[in-house]
């Protein structure tokens, strides 16, 4: 026993303390509890992993039986293997840095204790998700992080857009969760268990031709769940809006950890996916398509957080491309490096926003290089990492993925390379617009305090050197490495695309700033299409959201609620009369109409039964 | 043994028909044969020879209905005493105890309505704020 349960329980305790007593406590106390609990969880993770090393086989701790019926046993079991070990380190490590940063960033915000309580609750669920030893417990964490994400996106609840964004994230994730829960039930029907070890053993022992159809269905449903959580086409629309939440939330939940849960889940289910080649192809295609689509939208956005949000969607697409190409360890590798540099980009963006007292529009920035140098230099580290400049972290992981994609299907590699070029372009476009040229805004810029810049520097170091952590080698016991695909030519091409992107951004936004506007005008339709995000939000709204709301209203046949609301709109004079009229109708008419419904239902049932002839 | 529902319920159907025919025949017969007088005095409500005064649609105190309902309640409960008296010899002590419990329960209800003032005619309407 290594007491794995302590890892998630520590943040849970932090949540309970802050949630129940935080309102009356001082900020120092709230900080100490929130950061302290995550720090202890981090320490305990490190200690446990050292104790368990080398962890060639999964270490499983079974606490108690949760549900047992017949042969089925679902337990509160935690397991840690090398895959979850990597995830644990990322979640607790990056999570700790972001907690520290948030203490500075949120210092002047209302609802301070509430923010940290939710953040701790999020850590709890995320760690449960990572440690779960069966699909059901994973589902607990899965739903839990969704809840926290919902609460934290809507943190600035007074802004309508924030409330709407929370709602949107929630609705879209419901679709994904629906797929995921169906997948879990299907797994249960097929294998009679939900325990990872047993499911994979059974799937592996059955001949492929027997299970291919079933596993394809399971994997496609799992992928639907992953697409919801990890913002892939067609369910990616919530993530850019989720940027309404406070920036540390964007960094922790919507860049580094929660959104990668889908990637983790698919990698965890690798045994199933490798036996369902069709599903694996779908994963790769969705990943690739998402990567291109999101990157192209990111090219023209003016909100600094939106740029990075689309970048996140695009990079998640990369990860799925890696998974779909069968290079699971490459996908996880990119997950790790992405956690470093994307968290850094968001935290840096937060630092910029903080410095400009809330300004997020890139057009209102410029020339900040000298005003907030620490932020600039750390963000530059992240930018070169994400652009794939060797020898920084993004270069290694992106390379693994692209090489695997080339091995899988060469055309995917080429699309990936184009995306890499776009990635480098939009990141450096944002960098140049914010830090170069002359300052276009009005607010007085000031560098962030040490409590915020220290995490930036730590993440900058990780972004630069993180590529040296050879995640694929660490993951070898989980995902045996196939033959290595080394091709200096292909590597050179993708690196070249990155440099081309950077150079283009330099040309358009530093050397000849007027050119960018002219280009936008020349390509009017394309520009508007990209700027309008392909108008998918509007399409979804018209096709899905509105019809459901309409049905809900129609179902309230008698329209009591609607009637009163309409009355209120029509002015006070009509209103009194209106309500009186409604009430009078209620007294005499409605009971009768209810009774008619009962009677109609009874007659309907009778007719049905009579026609069916008693079910003969 | 009759085979189908049609056969089984035919007598019932027949009886319904006859009942309707008889009722319809009586009303129709009196309508056809009877002498029709129609004037104001004939149309006035019959009240034991006393000339009616005022409208019949007066408002009654709600207590009137309350007492009427309570009367029906206790009246119905008294009905149970008849079958009890019939089987008393067979059931002996059990019947006695059973009916005793029954009466006690009724008494509970009786005390309750009594104490709540439901039987109190003379009690003034309480102003609403006292409730």
């Amino acid at each position, binding site marked *: 026993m290594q007491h794995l349960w302590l890892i998630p329980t520590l943040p849970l305790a932090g949540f309970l303390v802050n949630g129940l007593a935080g309102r009356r406590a001082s900020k120092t106390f709230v900080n100490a509890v929130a950061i302290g609990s995550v720090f202890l969880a981090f320490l305990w993770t490190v200690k446990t992993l050292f104790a368990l090393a080398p962890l060639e086989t999964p270490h499983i701790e079974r606490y108690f039986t*949760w549900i047992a019926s017949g042969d089925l046993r679902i337990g509160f079991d935690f397991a840690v293997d090398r895959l979850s070990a990597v995830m644990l380190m990322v979640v607790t490590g990056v999570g700790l840095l972001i907690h520290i940063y948030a203490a500075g960033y949120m210092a002047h915000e209302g609802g301070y204790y509430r923010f940290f309580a939710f953040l701790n609750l999020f850590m709890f669920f995320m760690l449960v998700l990572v440690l779960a030893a069966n699909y059901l417990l994973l589902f607990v964490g899965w739903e839990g992080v969704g809840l926290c994400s919902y609460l934290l996106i809507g943190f600035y609840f007074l802004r309508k857009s924030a409330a709407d964004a929370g709602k949107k994230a*929630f609705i879209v994730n419901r679709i994904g969760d629906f797929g995921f829960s169906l997948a879990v039930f299907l797994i249960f029907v097929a294998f009679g268990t939900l325990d990872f070890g047993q499911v994979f053993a059974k799937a592996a022992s059955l001949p492929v031709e027997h299970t291919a159809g079933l596993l394809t269905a399971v994997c496609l449903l799992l992928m639907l769940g992953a697409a919801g959580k990890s913002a892939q086409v067609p369910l990616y629309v919530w993530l850019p809006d989720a940027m309404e939440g406070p920036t540390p939330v964007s960094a922790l939940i919507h860049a580094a950890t929660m959104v990668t849960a889908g990637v983790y889940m698919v990698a965890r289910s690798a045994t199933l996916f490798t036996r369902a080649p069709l599903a694996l192809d779908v994963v790769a295609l969705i990943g690739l398509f998402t990567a291109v689509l999101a990157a192209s939208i990111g090219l023209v956005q003016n909100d600094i957080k939106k740029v990075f949000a689309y970048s996140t969607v695009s990079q998640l697409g990369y990860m799925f491309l890696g998974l779909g190409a069968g290079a699971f360890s490459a996908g996880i590798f990119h997950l790790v490096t992405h956690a470093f540099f994307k968290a850094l980009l968001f935290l840096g963006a937060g630092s910029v926003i903080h410095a400009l007292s809330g300004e997020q529009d890139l057009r209102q920035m410029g020339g900040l290089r000298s005003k907030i140098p620490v932020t600039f230099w750390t963000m530059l580290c992240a930018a070169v990492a994400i652009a794939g400049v060797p020898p920084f972290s993004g270069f290694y992981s992106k390379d693994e993925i692209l090489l695997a994609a080339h091995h899988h299907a060469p055309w995917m590699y080429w699309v990936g390379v184009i995306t890499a070029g776009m990635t480098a372009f939009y990141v450096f476009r944002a960098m140049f617009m914010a830090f170069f040229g002359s300052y276009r805004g009005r607010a007085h810029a000031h560098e962030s305090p040490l409590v915020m810049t220290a995490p930036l520097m730590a993440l900058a170091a990780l972004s630069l050197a993180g590529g040296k952590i050879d995640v694929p080698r660490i993951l070898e016991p989980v995902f045996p490495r196939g033959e290595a695909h080394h091709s200096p030519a292909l590597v050179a091409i993708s690196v070249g695309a990155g440099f081309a992107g950077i150079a283009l951004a330099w040309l358009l936004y530093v050397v000849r700033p007027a050119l960018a506007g002219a280009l936008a005008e020349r390509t009017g339709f394309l520009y508007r299409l990209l700027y309008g995000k392909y108008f998918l939000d509007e399409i979804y709204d018209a096709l899905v959201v509105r019809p459901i*709301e309409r049905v809900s209203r129609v179902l309230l046949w008698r329209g009591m609620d609607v009637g009163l609301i309409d009355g209120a709109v029509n002015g006070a004079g009509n209103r009194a009369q209106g309500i009186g009229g409604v009430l009078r109708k209620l007294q005499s008419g409605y009971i009768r109409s209810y009774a008619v419904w009962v009677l109609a239902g009874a007659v309907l049932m009778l007719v049905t039964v009579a026609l069916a002839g008693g079910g003969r | 043994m009759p085979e189908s529902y049609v056969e089984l319920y035919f007598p019932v159907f027949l009886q319904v028909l006859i009942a309707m025919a008889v009722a319809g025949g009586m009303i129709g017969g009196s309508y056809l044969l009877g002498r029709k007088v129609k004037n104001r005095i004939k149309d006035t409500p019959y009240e034991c020879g006393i000339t009616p005064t005022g409208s019949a649609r007066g408002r009654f105190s709600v207590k009137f209905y309350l007492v009427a309902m309570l009367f029906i309640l206790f009246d119905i409960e008294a009905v149970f005493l008849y079958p009890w008296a019939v089987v008393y010899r067979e059931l002996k002590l059990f019947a006695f105890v059973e009916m005793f419990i029954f009466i006690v*329960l009724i008494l509970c209800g009786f005390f*309750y309505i009594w104490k709540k003032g439901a039987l109190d005619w003379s009690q003034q309407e309480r102003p609403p704020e006292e409730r």
Partner: protein
Amino acid sequence: MSQYYTATDHFVLVPAIMLALFGCAILLFDFWVFPEPKQRKWLLAFLALGEAFAGYGLWQQHTYIAGQGIAELTAFQGSLVVDGFSLFFNWMFIAAASIVALMSYRYLEVEGEHHGEYYSLILLAQCGMYFLASGADLITLFVGLELMALCFYIMVGFLRSDKRSNEAAMKYLLLGGFSSGFLAYGFSLLYGLSGSTKLSEIGVAIARRDPADPVLLLAMVTTTVGLLFKISAVPFHMWAPDAYEGAPTTVTAYLSVGSKAASIAFLLRIFLGPLASARAAWEPLLVFAAIASLTVGNLAAISQHNIKRLLAYSSISHAGYMLLGLVAGNETGIKGVAVYVLVYTFTNLGVFLVIVALRREGLVGDNIDDLAGLMHKSPGYALLMLICLLSLAGIPPTAGFIGKYYIFLSLIQAGRYVLAAAAALYVAVAIYYYFRIVRSMFMSDAEDAGAMETTFGVRVAAALTGLGTLGIGIFPEPFLRFAGQSLIR
């Protein structure tokens, strides 16, 4: 003791006697022994005593049955039966009635309608539920149903000066009477078909008949209509939103768990007993009612602003899930329904308890906006509400998940994949409107800073419901075993 009233009869009847006795006693003590308003807490104490005695009687039955290793104990020539099923439900009724009574005291004070009758009505309604859970005879069951329903009609209209409450009571009474008519008609046909009012004998007689017999179908449909009305399944649900909204919140709580659980017990007794052989005929009806309930309940709840109304629609959808367990019809399904009802009892009581606790002078607390900023005002209650709403939505590791899990499992085992998928889809819909409440609690600022005033009783009730909801979710084993015993056949 005589042949008409044996020791066994008495043994089986003890809990009901206790409930009725204390019910009547409270009625009399209200003006006789404790006439002062301040002495009403003694009436509450008497209610607790009555529950304790009833519980003791129940516990004796429980240990006797377990000790003898018998499946059931019949009394009054088979009119009453004590088995795992009745015990399971009766324990639940005791828990529900006690929790409701605990949360009522302060609420009624605030409403200004604190009368001793309330406590006696709780007990007498529970007495009716006792007969619904243990009755094995049409007349016993019907009398039990009416005893329960009459108490609820009064309780729904308990706020005499509130128009909504009066209106709700009137609607509930008229429609309840209407549906009882259907039920009585169905029962009379069942009696006509079999020549007996005993469920077991009716079952034998029906099994011998042609399943397409029109009179049998008529009997089945009318009975089904009456039963579905009681559990507020679509299309017989129209009374529920009005009754739930208008009734005093504590009564709504009792109505939503007590009345519903007892009606479900009643429904299971009828469908798995005398009507079991006509399954082919009633199953499509229940499938229709279940899917319609899920659809209407979940979709209509989305656009509600009043929490009580929202919960009424949610309770309609939960009735749909319970029916699905019966549709699956296998062992898991029936066990699932029992677990579901148990879980629903604790969870729903928890939600209503928070609304009740919110009520104070000048704040009704039944609008979603009234919950705004609850986390600031009293984080403990916000947490309770969160847990209960997660449970209603069926998210693990709360109890609601266990209930839904067994229903889904049974549907899958029965090969009804489409129904399982539809049910899963509606879970996704349901989470949406539950989370509207969550967001209001956690994300909004309090519109008024007034702190919540709670009493010891409310706090105890809160702890009970919270522990029940989380406890069953995390350690479901003992409850599952208990529900497994409650299997009818």
